[in-house]
C-alpha cells in the first residue's frame, strides 16, 4: 500500500497511460501488419494466378509462356519474384531462372486454394511465399484422340496436380513493419515521459490545497485557538474537512477557555485565603503580642487552612467525577437513615442558629445507589442549607418514588435570591452572597460538586426558589442499579 497520495495518483495515472498505450500500439501494429501482409499476399496471389494460367503443356513436360517468363518482375536482380512448379509426385519442373539451381521449399494446401507462408528465401533474406495447387489444364490434341486406349491411359497424367510456389523478397515489408514497431515504441516512450511530467505537475497543483491546509493547521497552536482556517478558495472536496476542523477548533477553544477560566478561578479562590493567612501572620509577627492575640491569629489561620483543605479536596473530587474516575458500589440504601446520619454533622451548628430540621422521608423508602456518593451529595446539600437558612429557620428533606425515578428534595427557608440567580448555583465558585465568604468554610464548590456527582449517578439536579424564600434542591435519580451501571 502506497501511503503517499501523490505517489498513488502518479502511479495510477502513469500506469493507466502505459497500459492504454501498450494496448493501442499492439492493436495499431497488428492492424497495419495484417493489412500490409494481406496486400503483399494478394499481389503474390495474383502473380500465382497469372503464372498458373500461363502454364503450357508439352507432352509430359510443361512450360511457361515465353512473354510471361520474360516479365521484368522475375528478372529483377533485387527483390525478384521466384516461382517453381512441382508436379504432384514431388518433382520440380519449371523454376524461375533467377533461382539458379536452388529449390523453393515445397508446401501445399488443398487443391485450388492458396496457402501463404513466411520463409527465408535465397541469401537468407526474409520473404513470403504462396503455394497454389491446381489441376493441370488439359490440352486435347486431335492426334491423341485417335490414340489407342493405352495411349489414353498414358494421357492420364493430364489429370495430375501441379503445385506452384511463388516467393517474393519481403524484406521491404518486414523493414516497414520493424520501422512501425520502433515508431510505436518511441512514440509510446515519449508520450509516457511527457505524461509523467504533466502528471507530476497536475498532481502537485491538484494537491496544493492540501499542503496549504497543512500549513494553515500547522500555524495553529494552543495560544491562537481562536484562529480559523480560511475557507477561501479551498476546493469543494476539502471544504468539508476545513469546516469540520474549524468546528473542532471552536470546541477546543471553548474547552481551553473553560479550563483557563477554571484555573484562574481556582487561583483566585486559593489566593484570597492565602493572602488572609499571610497578612494575619505577618501583622501578628510584626511586634510582640500577648497570648490572647496569638491565639486569635492562630485560630484564624487554622480556619483558613481548613477552608482551603476542603476546597482542595472538593476540587479533587470534582475533577475525578468529571473524568469519571470514580468507581461506584451499588447497595440498597435506606434513605431516611442516610439523611439522618448526614445531618448529625450539622445538628450542633443548626442548634446554635435555632434552625429546625425535619426528615420527612418515609422510613421504608429505599433505593439502589452508591452510598458514598449519595452521602457526599447529602452532606453538601445539608451544609449549604445550614449555612444559608435564616436564623430560627427550617430545613426539611422529602422523598418521593415515581414510576421510573426517585426524587429526593432538601428545602430550606430564608433564601434571598431569585430563580434566575438560582440557576447559577451550579457554577464553580458562585456564592449567593460573597460577603459570607468569611463566615464559614464555603468555597462555592458544593452545589457544583452535587451536580457532577448526581450526573455521574445518571440523575438530574433541579434548583428552584418558591415564594416565601424557600430554596429547594431536587435530585431525580433513576431507579435501580441501571442508574449506576448503564
Amino acid at each position: 500500500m502506497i501511503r503517499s497520495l501523490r505517489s498513488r495518483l502518479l502511479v495510477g495515472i502513469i500506469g493507466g497511460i502505459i497500459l492504454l498505450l501498450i494496448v493501442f500500439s499492439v492493436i495499431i501494429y497488428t492492424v497495419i501488419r495484417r493489412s500490409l501482409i494481406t496486400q503483399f499476399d494478394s499481389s503474390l496471389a495474383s502473380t500465382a494466378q497469372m503464372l498458373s494460367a500461363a502454364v503450357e503443356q508439352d507432352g509430359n513436360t510443361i512450360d511457361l509462356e515465353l512473354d510471361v517468363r520474360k516479365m521484368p518482375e522475375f528478372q529483377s536482380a533485387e527483390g525478384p519474384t521466384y516461382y517453381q512448379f512441382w508436379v504432384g509426385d514431388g518433382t520440380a519442373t519449371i523454376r524461375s531462372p533467377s533461382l539458379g539451381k536452388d529449390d523453393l521449399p515445397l508446401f501445399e494446401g488443398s487443391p485450388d486454394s492458396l496457402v501463404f507462408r513466411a520463409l527465408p528465401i535465397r541469401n537468407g533474406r526474409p520473404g513470403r511465399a504462396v503455394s497454389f495447387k491446381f489441376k493441370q489444364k488439359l490440352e486435347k490434341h486431335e492426334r491423341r484422340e485417335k490414340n489407342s486406349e493405352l495411349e489414353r491411359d498414358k494421357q492420364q497424367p493430364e489429370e495430375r496436380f501441379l503445385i506452384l510456389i511463388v516467393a517474393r523478397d519481403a524484406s521491404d515489408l518486414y523493414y516497414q513493419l520493424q520501422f512501425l514497431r520502433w515508431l510505436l515504441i518511441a512514440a509510446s516512450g515519449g508520450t509516457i515521459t511527457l505524461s509523467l511530467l504533466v502528471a507530476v505537475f497536475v498532481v502537485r497543483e491538484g494537491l496544493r490545497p492540501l499542503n496549504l491546509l497543512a500549513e494553515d493547521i500547522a500555524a495553529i497552536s494552543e495560544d491562537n485557538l481562536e484562529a480559523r482556517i480560511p475557507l477561501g478558495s479551498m476546493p469543494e472536496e476539502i471544504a468539508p474537512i476545513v469546516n469540520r476542523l474549524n468546528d473542532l477548533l471552536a470546541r477546543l477553544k471553548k474547552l481551553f477557555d473553560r479550563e483557563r477560566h477554571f484555573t484562574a478561578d481556582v487561583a483566585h479562590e486559593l489566593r484570597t485565603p492565602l493572602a488572609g493567612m499571610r497578612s494575619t501572620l505577618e501583622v501578628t509577627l510584626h511586634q510582640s503580642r500577648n497570648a490572647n492575640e496569638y491565639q486569635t491569629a492562630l485560630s484564624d489561620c487554622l480556619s483558613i487552612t481548613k477552608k482551603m483543605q476542603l476546597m482542595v479536596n472538593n476540587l479533587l473530587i470534582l475533577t475525578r467525577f468529571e473524568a469519571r474516575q470514580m468507581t461506584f458500589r451499588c447497595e440498597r440504601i435506606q434513605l431516611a437513615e442516610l439523611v439522618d446520619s448526614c445531618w448529625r454533622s450539622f445538628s450542633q451548628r443548626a442548634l446554635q442558629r435555632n434552625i429546625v430540621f425535619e426528615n420527612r422521608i418515609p422510613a421504608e423508602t429505599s433505593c439502589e445507589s452508591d452510598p458514598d456518593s449519595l452521602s457526599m451529595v447529602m452532606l453538601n446539600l445539608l451544609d449549604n442549607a445550614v449555612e444559608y437558612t435564616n436564623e430560627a429557620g427550617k430545613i426539611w428533606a422529602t422523598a418521593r418514588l415515581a414510576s421510573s425515578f426517585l426524587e429526593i428534595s432538601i428545602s430550606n427557608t430564608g433564601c434571598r435570591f431569585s430563580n434566575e440567580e438560582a440557576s447559577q448555583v451550579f457554577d464553580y465558585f458562585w456564592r449567593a452572597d460573597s460577603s459570607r465568604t468569611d463566615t464559614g468554610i464555603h468555597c462555592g464548590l458544593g452545589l457544583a460538586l452535587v451536580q457532577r456527582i448526581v450526573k455521574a449517578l445518571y440523575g438530574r439536579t433541579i434548583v428552584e426558589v418558591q415564594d416565601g424564600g424557600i430554596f429547594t434542591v431536587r435530585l431525580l435519580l433513576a431507579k435501580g442499579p441501571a442508574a449506576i451501571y448503564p
Partner: protein
Amino acid sequence: MRLLLVEDYRPLRQSLTKGLREAGFAVDTTGDGKEGLWYAMGSEYDVIILDIMLPGLNGLEILKKIRSKGRKSHVLILTAKDTVEDRVAGLDLGADDYLVKPFAFEELLARVRALLRRSYRRKNPRINIEGMRIDLTTHRVWRGRQEISLTPREYALLEYLAMRAGQTVSRSDIWEHVYEFNSSASSNVVDVYIGYLRRKIELPGRPALIRTVRGRGYILGAQS
C-alpha cells in the same frame, strides 16, 4: 494619615486593619462595596485600599464612581487576579497602584507610604523642618541630635502637619486626615494633641515650630 480599606474577606480585612493601625494610620474599614463607596464619598481619604471582587458593588465600579466625582484620593487596588488585563483595567480606571494577593504586608505599607508622599508631593522620605527631622519610614523624630519619643497619635498629627509644612492646616483637615470615622474623640481633641506635641518638640528659647493661625488653624515651620 487616614486610609479606607474595602475588603470583603474577613481575615484579610481584620489583619490589614490591625497592621495599618499599628503602623500609625487612621483606618476606616468595610467589607461591602456600597458601604465602601459611601465612605469614599464622605471623606477625603489619603489612600483607599480597594479589593476588586466585592459584594454589593465591584471595586472597579467604586473606583469609576469616585473618580467621576473628582475625588483625588490615591487608590491602591488589591486583586487576586493577576492577568495583565485585570491590572490594566484597574490602572486605566484611575487606580494609582495595585498589589496581587497574596502580598507581603511590608510591601503594602511601603506602597501606601509611597502613595502618601506622592499625594503631598514629597519624594524624600525624610522631612527636615528648621532643625527637626522626621523619618517617614521608621516614624522617628529628632530635634537637633535629640530623638523625640512620640505616641502614635502624636506622630500621626506631626506627620500630617509636616507633609503640609508651610501651609495653614485647619482643624477640620486634621480631623479628616488623622482621625478615624468611628473615632469617639471630639474635635477639640485636635487642640489637646497640638498641645501635647508642642510640649515635646518645641525647645525653650527657639522660635516655635507650630504656630497657631487665629481662626484658621495651625502652621508647621515657616510659611511658604
